[in-house]
């Protein structure tokens, strides 16, 4: 497989963790693209911002996504953003998140969608 070309990828998660596999899928996708040297940005919108919440208590037998998020940097996923409005609406303070995600306001969100070659929303 040729990895000489890269296509920047924005992986967008709009689903809360643990109800379905969506949030986990988003993290796996981001890790895979990064592992193959593609520039990846992970963005959490809407209910998806709960994936970043500190103090998660996953159901027994489920992966702890807050802990898994801590591995993203190790795979080269540099940038994690969260919709600032979504965080505020849900009472999630940036400094209490499981991961140092950057809060994104509308202009940043627009730029993220505009500047990535691929957008994968789960």
């Amino acid at each position, binding site marked *: *497989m*040729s*990895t000489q*070309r*890269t*296509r920047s*990828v924005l992986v967008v998660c*709009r*689903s809360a963790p643990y109800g*379905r*596999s*969506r949030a986990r*899928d988003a993290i*796996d*996708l981001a890790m*895979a*693209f990064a592992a*193959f040297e*593609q520039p990846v940005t992970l963005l959490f919108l809407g209910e998806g911002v709960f994936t970043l919440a500190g103090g998660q208590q996953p159901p027994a037998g489920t992966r702890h996504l807050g802990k898994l998020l801590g591995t993203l940097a190790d795979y080269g996923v540099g940038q994690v953003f969260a919709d600032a409005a979504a965080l505020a609406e849900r009472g999630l303070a940036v400094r209490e998140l499981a991961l140092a995600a950057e809060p994104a306001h509308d202009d940043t969100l627009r730029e993220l969608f505009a500047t990535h070659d*691929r*957008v*994968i*929303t*789960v």
Partner: protein
Amino acid sequence: MIFALLVHDAPVGRHSSQAAYRFASELLAGGHTLFRVFFFGDGVHHSTRLNLTPGNETDLPQRWSRLAAEHGVDLVSCVGSALRRGIVDEAQARQHALEAVSLRDGFELSGLGQLVEASIRCDRLVVFGG
């Protein structure tokens, strides 16, 4: 134009899944190239050989398989997603001593690297589901 599709929803009860198949057929009919369809998460259920679909509903697994046979489309289900959901090919069945093979002809199990490759090689990656 070269397309690749990412299918994330199961075939049953999800409008996006029907839309994915229709989109694939139409782009092929329109003379475009479909480089790969990658099934991920619940989307791997499109690759089962064991579904029994009532006659008045669309049998999407069968439709995909036919599309692959007629147009040489590469259909790949994510092996990690598939094994968790009981979609198993011969190699995995043997390796894990599972009693049946459930992957439909025309599909193969592989890793997310195939999705990454598709993302690099195609002009447009279209995501269905979510």
